[in-house]
């Protein structure tokens, strides 16, 4: 459309630039702060150009503060959550869309409700369950008068503890379900006529067609899992299982009292925590945006 609005355009550009700076500046500041030595970084205002202590700071944080292994843990956890989520959601949605059994509607609702309460609201009892995973069954059986010696499975301080509660929500299932509903019936019928059974159909036809969905879901799940803070904090006391994001808490001594943080190292740690999800989102922008929007539907 041809529209001559030079002043408005100028204003728009100005606003955009301002907002752009606001969006990006914190990240840049974090980076710059992480390259200075302590005295420089503690000056007010901090210098706006990068310093020389890049390698020093980062190797210090990586080794002494043990950030290295934590980053690895984060990677493992995020990958496990992503893969687990993508797989479980796919088969659950498949069950709910392509089969017709009476409890289908009920199960769908059951899964749907889990969207309403995020993890933060039920941390205490979820922690209790993680401490003794089969406790629900033991208790329920005890109500019925059956006292079975069900073993105590403790998933605190373990990858399963970090991963499973995050895989337990319904986000991915909805994404897949919605997508499956858009696949024309005729395709299913043609596959049936070709002799394909349910699993064959799922593997040969449904999954390949779901590729964009899977990319979108994977992207948002990876970012979500990497960025988890509260849950890893609760469930890991053993430093071998700590994740990078939760480790930020350790980098920073108590906020109100005591010493201020060692800012340059703190910023280096922050940057390390920021970078992987940023990279994932940068590479998979389209999938990320698509995933966020589709999940909210």
């Amino acid at each position, binding site marked *: 459309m041809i529209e001559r609005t030079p002043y408005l355009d100028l204003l728009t550009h100005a606003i955009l630039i301002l907002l752009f700076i606001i969006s990006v500046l914190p990240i840049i500041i974090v980076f710059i702060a992480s390259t200075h030595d302590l005295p420089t970084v503690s000056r007010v205002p901090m210098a706006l150009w990068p310093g020389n202590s890049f390698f020093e700071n980062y190797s210090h944080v990586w080794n002494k503060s043990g950030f290295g292994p934590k980053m690895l843990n984060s990677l493992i956890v995020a990958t496990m959550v992503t893969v687990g989520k993508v797989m479980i959601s796919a088969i659950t949605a498949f069950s709910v869309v392509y089969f017709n059994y009476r409890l289908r509607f009920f199960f769908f609702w059951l899964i749907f409700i889990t969207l309403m309460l995020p993890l933060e609201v039920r941390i205490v009892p979820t922690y209790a369950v993680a401490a003794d995973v089969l406790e629900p069954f033991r208790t329920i059986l005890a109500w019925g008068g059956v006292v079975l010696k069900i073993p105590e499975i403790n998933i605190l301080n373990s990858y399963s503890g970090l991963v499973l509660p995050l895989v337990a929500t319904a986000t991915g299932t909805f994404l897949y379900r919605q997508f499956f509903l858009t696949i024309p019936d005729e395709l299913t019928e043609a596959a*049936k006529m070709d002799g394909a059974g349910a699993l064959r159909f799922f593997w040969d036809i449904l999954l390949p067609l779901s590729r964009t969905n899977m990319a979108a879901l994977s992207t948002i799940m990876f970012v979500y899992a990497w960025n988890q803070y509260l849950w890893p904090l609760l469930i890991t006391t053993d430093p071998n299982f700590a994740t990078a994001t939760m480790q930020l808490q350790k980098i920073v001594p108590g906020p109100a009292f005591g010493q201020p943080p060692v800012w340059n190292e703190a910023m280096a740690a922050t940057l390390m925590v920021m970078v992987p999800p940023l990279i994932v989102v940068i590479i998979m922008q389209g999938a990320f945006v698509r995933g966020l929007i589709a999940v909210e539907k």
Partner: protein
Amino acid sequence: MANILVAHLNKSYGKNSAVNDLNCEIKSQEFVVILGPSGCGKSTFLRMIAGLETVTSGEIKIDNIIVNDLEPRERGCAMVFQNYALYPHMTVAENIGYSLKVEGINRTERLQRIHNVAKIIGLEDFLDRKPGQLSGGQRQRVAMGRAIIREPKLFLFDEPLSNLDAKLRVQMRIEIRKLHNRLNATSIFVTHDQIEAMTLADRMIVMNKGKIEQIGTPEDIYRLPATQFVAGFVGSPPMNLLKATVIDCSTVKIDDQLIRVPQHDVAIGSVVIVGIRPEHVEMDDNAGNNVFSIDFIEDMGSLRLLHGKLGGHDFVVQSLSGATQQLGQFKVRIASDKIHLFDVATGLRLQI
């Protein structure tokens, strides 16, 4: 190939009845067309034969085996869908060969058979393309290839030509019939296009509102429609159907026009439906007995359709192109032996 026997077939969704008491027999190697308007239940009928819909009551037998409870793949049928239903992420070759892959046939044999079928449908050079890269007609042929490769007892076609443009439709229907002949197959073809039905069928099943109106050869159905519906549905341009009052055993009256009809025994004074095909009326200003006023002319090149009124009712006459035809009132001669009479209440043909 296969012969099909359908007995008292019913299908209802809750209270709504989709098809009602269907009975028919399809002989081996026949090309049968199920014809009817949208929503008449023809697709439902086909899908029940295929095993894609459950049967509410009644029996379907393929080669004397009751197949009501068999899965589609166990029935030995192959289907060509209206929207082709090709697997979008697979190549043409993979699409065609998918059923063989499911069966577990090894790769070499599969490729050989795919290649043979590709030759039959003329798509050997397209085997590596994906459906998205093909034209409508090519996709249709892939869909057919997918059906052919299974060497089924029975071919089922669910309005396969509806999504093609007119010219392609004509071409493809010839190819389908030729294929049927070549493979000695039994085929059931569903369509709402009566021209397709007339040109393709060995026999036709005309359906309306879930019921079978008539089964017969195209010729029988055209010459002797069993019901008013069939009479008005088959034939292009459609038969003129007018309400008339019986004067005597060989005359009826439409408004002020008297028309000679074949002998019948309907009571005098009662109302009947009179059916006259546009091609059975001749413009004859000299010896014509009835008056026809033309208000619109459609010139189709070799033929003319004259639209107007006879006895106050809408009427169409077909005539050959020739001298210029004017609008206005003219005399026409109606071939009285070619007139059909139908009961006004039941729509059934009144026997003479």
